[in-house]
């Protein structure tokens, strides 16, 4: 029995908690991609770099607050600086919309052109971020590291295996729940949110009903900037901030959005968790679990790992391919926003 509980603890500690955390980050990222797709109708490749930009501003805010001696310990100071980062990302998004996207929108350019434009912006923002903060690693986490550590857990339960919960993990999951709840409330209950959904559903009909398209577009960018910053900051707090890593997040984020059905917020969230769980579950070495669950004195020679951790990215790609073959419209097909 203890063996079984030990195995469960290992699974929780190394799969469930990290996957919930990573899944929340992906879900928030995918939500931003899906919003752009739903309203503006293109795949926004610049989203990853926008996350990096928002996070960068948040980091500057954090440093400023730390210099002033402001602290909300045990919570990380970055949460306090988040509004600044959001404002930065929103302003940059709106500037890009005015200077770049608007022209192509008025010409009714095809989605592929928008896609290429967003790639141009991706490089621009990427260069900007590396130019300002440099390509190196930035750790901006402060406050308490663990809510409870593996050692505490072992001592209080008497089990062989430990279960740790990092502050960043708890913060990520709770923030994600709050943000998603606020998002759905906004989209479903407020007048502005409804107008956004109407616009996404049928642009012409929405225009006929007197919805102001410029306003809808503006609000979309504001939401997207906010989501990108929150997702990026949570990711940066949990791992560390490296401009390079945000470009690599792009594929899992797109995979998450497509798995759930592009343009569908609920799908984006579900997709985020699907991708995160499969990535971590497929690349986890099950040696310990098998040892606990198997008969006594049985110990596997290998790591019992399906795929090396280096191939994490391949997992999201394979899921993407399966979805494209089996159900190209995603799990929650047919519904947008």
């Amino acid at each position, binding site marked *: 029995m203890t063996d079984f509980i030990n195995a469960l603890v290992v699974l929780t500690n190394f799969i469930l908690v990290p996957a919930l955390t990573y899944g929340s980050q992906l879900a928030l990222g995918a939500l931003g991609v899906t919003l752009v797709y739903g309203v503006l109708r*293109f*795949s926004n*490749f610049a989203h990853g770099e926008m996350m990096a930009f928002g996070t960068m501003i948040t980091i500057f805010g954090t440093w400023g607050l730390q210099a002033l001696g402001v602290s909300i310990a045990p919570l990380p100071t970055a949460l306090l600086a988040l509004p600044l980062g959001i404002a930065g990302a929103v302003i940059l998004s709106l500037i890009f919309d005015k200077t*770049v996207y608007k*022209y*192509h929108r008025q010409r009714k350019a*095809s*989605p*592929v*052109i928008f*896609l*290429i*434009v967003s*790639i*141009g*912006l*991706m*490089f*621009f*923002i*990427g*260069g*900007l971020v*590396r*130019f300002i903060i*440099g*390509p190196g690693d930035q750790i901006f986490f402060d406050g308490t590291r663990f809510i409870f550590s593996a050692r505490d857990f072992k001592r209080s339960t008497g089990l062989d295996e430990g279960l740790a919960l990092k502050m960043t993990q708890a913060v990520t999951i709770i923030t994600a729940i709050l943000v998603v709840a606020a998002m759905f409330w906004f989209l479903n209950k407020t007048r502005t949110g409804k107008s956004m959904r109407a616009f996404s559903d049928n642009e012409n009909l929405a225009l006929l009903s007197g919805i102001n398209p410029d306003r809808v577009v503006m609000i979309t960018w504001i939401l997207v900037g906010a989501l990108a910053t929150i997702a990026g900051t949570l990711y940066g707090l949990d791992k560390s901030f490296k401009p390079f890593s945000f*470009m*690599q997040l*792009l*594929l899992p984020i*797109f*995979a998450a959005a*497509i798995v759930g059905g592009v343009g569908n917020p609920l799908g984006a969230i579900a997709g985020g968790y699907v991708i995160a769980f499969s990535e971590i579950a497929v690349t986890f070495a099950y040696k310990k679990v098998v040892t606990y669950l198997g008969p006594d004195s049985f110990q596997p020679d*290998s790591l019992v790992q399906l795929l*090396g951790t*280096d*191939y994490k*990215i*391949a997992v*999201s*790609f394979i899921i*993407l*391919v399966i979805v*494209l*073959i*089996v159900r*190209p419209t995603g799990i929650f097909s047919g519904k947008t926003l």
Partner: protein
Amino acid sequence: MNQTFFNQYRTQILYSVMALLLVIVGVGQGWSVAFTILNLCLISAIMSLGVNMQWGYAGLFNVGVMGFAALGGLAAVLVSMPPVEEARAAGGQGVLVGLLILIATIFVSIVAWKQFGAKSKKTGYWMLFIIIAAGYALMRLFFLPSVEAIEAVNPSVTGYLGGLGLPIILSWPVGMVFAAGAAYVIGKVALGLRSDYLAIATLGISEIVLYFIKNEEWLTRGVKNVNGLPRPVPYEVDLQQAVWFQQFAADWGMEVAEASSLFVKVCYAGLFIVVIAILMYLSETALKSPWGRMMRAIRDNEVAAAAMGKDVVKRHLTIFVIGSAVIGLAGAMLTTLDGQFTPVGYQPLRFTFLIWVMVIIGGSGNNWGAVLGGFFIWFFWIEAEPIGLWLVDTLTSFMEPTHWLRLHLMDSAAHMRLMTVGIVLLIALRYAPEGLIPERTARKH
């Protein structure tokens, strides 16, 4: 009047300007530098031709140029490097059995899908799942020990299976086949769906190809690189010792060492020019043929073309595979020219998006434009670094040499490339979407 003259001889004038730029570099920085740039210009032009086939003829957006080029580079290694006999003895059989199991698994899954999937999708999926899981487990059983054995063979020098030891020129068609194979799989999955799915799928495949190349050391040596690939042209050392060459260098009034390095580069340039000439002939003929007209008709209006009985998805698949094959060819040529295979060197900016900028600036849909774009953009990409450094240096010359802002700017000059590519792409799409040499259509004639 002048305007029409320029428009009429646009291609010729722009190509002359390009030639002039190269001559200026030759005179200013030395002919060796000029030919280095020219060789890479030629390879870039071939890549850009490949992307132009996909984007210019068919409107397909490939974000995975890097992956296809890397597959070409892999082909160069696998074809040309001498085999490592020890490693083959250690694990060659196991790897072979593993590969056979993989092929058998794929084959059995296809048969099973045709048998069961047609009747009930649910049974089909379960069958597939079981077959693939079993095949995968069986493959790993043979694969992993052999891989370990191979990587243990003299890891600092070899630690991989080596290649076939054939002439490296043969790797060029092999590179085409590799890239075409990958493109076929991706095209099968992503074509016929929404246009951005292809973009995301190709982004994925190129990342995975690179992860594969970096991690599967038994095949590619991974990040340890493969150096000293055989050459299709003579070596400098041999030339320097040959009597006829010493005579030849003396006739031209050059140092033997300098002449030999220049001679090698000219040989490469000659080879590449032959390839690009064949490709240009083929693609120009294809574009003018009824097939080319059909491709452009599909690009401009898929619905109308489908209504006229054209199978849009199949035609897209064809052109996607052909274009990727050309990119693979260029990848193999690039590795041949470098003489080494460095997986870390494959960066999306340089291998995917720079090529895109070449096509868009040059003129999508026009082969001459794409080639010119390849030349122009590569030229400025290489020359931008000295120009950028000089610019920062001049602009900040009034500051103290140790001023933090000046140091920061000097350090970050490299990131300016990222921004510049982005800005160039945005400006081109807005102000000159047709490119330097616009596509020629019946209407515009």
